[in-house]
């Protein structure tokens, strides 16, 4: 029957060979992104490491690269993280609890859910515009730590809500039912069962969103974070700068020296992020052990 060979190539060897080549191509696709990442890290470390010094960490931004430091930016980034943690975490976990434990399947709950998913896809620069229009001018907070912190809080809110929802949803219904059977009310079930059991998942989402907030630049540019200031912010309505802002400014500065300084600031930022993520992993492991023990 000569007609069947039109449907597929009968030489199994060549088909297998083709499969092996394709598998290699797919592997290269997977690795290529990681190669770029490795190149980035090596490039940044080689360029920036010679600039890392005690004076760089504890110094203030100056007009020459040699005399510049990033201390106010480190403090600014830490304060921003605190504001986001204080504002976005309770709001995000609260919204997740409402959606998972209270909301019935009605139009309002669906609207809120769709809205949260869409908010997660809004470009960060649009949040910056919101912050500029509402917090900086409408509420009159000015180019302050508070305006930037609130903007970043709204930016990471959907991430916290979605990850908390997943953590809460993964709790077996039987846990709640056993508590209800003993006469606990909803809020008691939430406080004594749902929150403690969901805590590792919630914390992971929270810390991931905090590290996202620390790396964001565009919203800070929009709310008018200072490029270089020679003081650390003293209160919420003070001007401030943050590590990503200095990276941005120094990258744009003419001259090789400032670019190398930007690389040094990137090392600090990446170290900051690695530290927060490491904390997240360790904390989650600890809490999970605590629970199973």
């Amino acid at each position, binding site marked *: 029957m000569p007609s069947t060979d039109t449907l597929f190539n009968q030489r199994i060897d060549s088909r297998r060979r083709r499969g092996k080549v394709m598998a290699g191509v797919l592997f290269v696709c997977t690795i290529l992104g990681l190669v*770029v990442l490795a190149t980035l890290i090596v490039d940044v470390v080689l360029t920036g490491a010679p600039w890392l010094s005690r004076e760089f960490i504890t110094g203030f931004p100056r007009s020459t690269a040699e005399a510049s430091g990033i201390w106010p930016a480190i403090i600014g980034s830490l304060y921003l993280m605190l504001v986001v943690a204080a504002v976005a975490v309770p709001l995000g976990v609260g919204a997740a609890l409402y959606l998972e434990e209270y909301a019935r399947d009605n139009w309002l709950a669906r609207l809120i859910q769709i809205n949260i998913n869409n908010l997660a896809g809004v470009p960060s620069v649009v949040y910056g515009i919101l912050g500029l229009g509402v917090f900086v001018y409408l509420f009159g907070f000015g180019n302050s730590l508070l305006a930037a912190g609130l903007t970043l809080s709204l930016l990471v809110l959907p991430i916290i809500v979605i990850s908390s929802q997943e953590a809460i949803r993964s709790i077996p219904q039987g846990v709640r039912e056993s508590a209800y059977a003993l006469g606990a009310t909803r809020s*008691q079930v939430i406080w004594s069962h749902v929150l403690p059991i969901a805590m590792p998942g919630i914390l992971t989402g929270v810390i991931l969103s905090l590290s996202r907030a620390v790396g964001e*630049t565009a919203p800070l540019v929009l709310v008018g974070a200072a490029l270089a200031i020679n003081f650390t912010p003293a209160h919420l309505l003070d001007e401030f700068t943050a590590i990503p802002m200095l990276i941005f400014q120094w990258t744009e500065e003419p001259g090789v020296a400032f670019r190398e300084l930007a690389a040094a600031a990137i090392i600090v930022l990446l170290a900051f992020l690695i530290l927060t993520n490491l904390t997240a992993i360790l904390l989650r492991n600890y809490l999970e052990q605590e629970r199973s023990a």
Partner: protein
Amino acid sequence: MPSTDTTQMSPAQPVPQPPSGGTSGNGAVDYSTNLEWSLRERIVQVLLGACALLTIGTTLGIVGILLYESFSFFLSVGIFDFLLGTEWRFAGVEPSFGVLPLVAGTMLITVIAALVGLPLGLGAAIYISQYASRPARKVLKPALEVLAGVPTVVYGYFALTFVSGVIIQGIDPSLPPLNALSAGLVVGVMIIPMVASVSEDALRAVPSSLSDGAYALGATKIEVVMKVVVPAALSGIIASFILAISRAIGETMIVAIAAGATANLTVNPLESIQTMTGFIVQVAKGDIDQGTLSYQSLFAVGLLLYIITLGMNLLATWLTRRFQEQY
């Protein structure tokens, strides 16, 4: 007695103190007062509900402020002059607000990013979901997530100093240091993890009976993957593409740093261009006074950006939902 109050557990017993929140572990809590609709329960529900409603407030705030300032802008600049104009000069004596050069710049970046990011992301998703061994997957997935965790300002630095400064100018030193190509390539790398993770979920959701059937008919692994699994997951894969493109359109710092600040109606990737997001950053970087035309133009461009990305995100959600119903 036909009791209507099913939440009352024990016989009526006058207990004045409020429930202590279940924190007591010694059994001293008297649950008889823990009525489902006690004041305390209502307060908790209202507070949590308010948190959920705040997310709606965020959207209303975004839409409200964008529409409000854009409205003032469109009182001075005609909406068609804005959408169809080919000259963008926001400063100077004779400003012109035709947004097409910014849209073209955004498109150019997006196309380059898509050419890089979509195939690499899909390839990674196929490899991780179909080929990688369990330990390999355990390493590769988090490693790709690291790629998504790198702040975009760091990518911007890398695009300018390495991709443009070392590679592109290494090939031809006469090329401009700020160009669409270097920014687009790096945006492409940035969207790889997004394509990979969403596509991988779609590929994993394909029931094994489909691939088993193909193997039974004598297909090789690559034939099963390419002709059965990938087509079955197609709507999810397309959703991941749309999400990634939407991300590329909204990406800001990479283009603000590496693509340039010349609103330029061109398709040449080696020229300096400006995107919608790049313009927003450029205006915001300078001191902007509220109420000026350039301040308002920032909101008009922001509104256009918001509408485009929102439309794409909704489309992706719709596609994902359709695909989930299939099996």
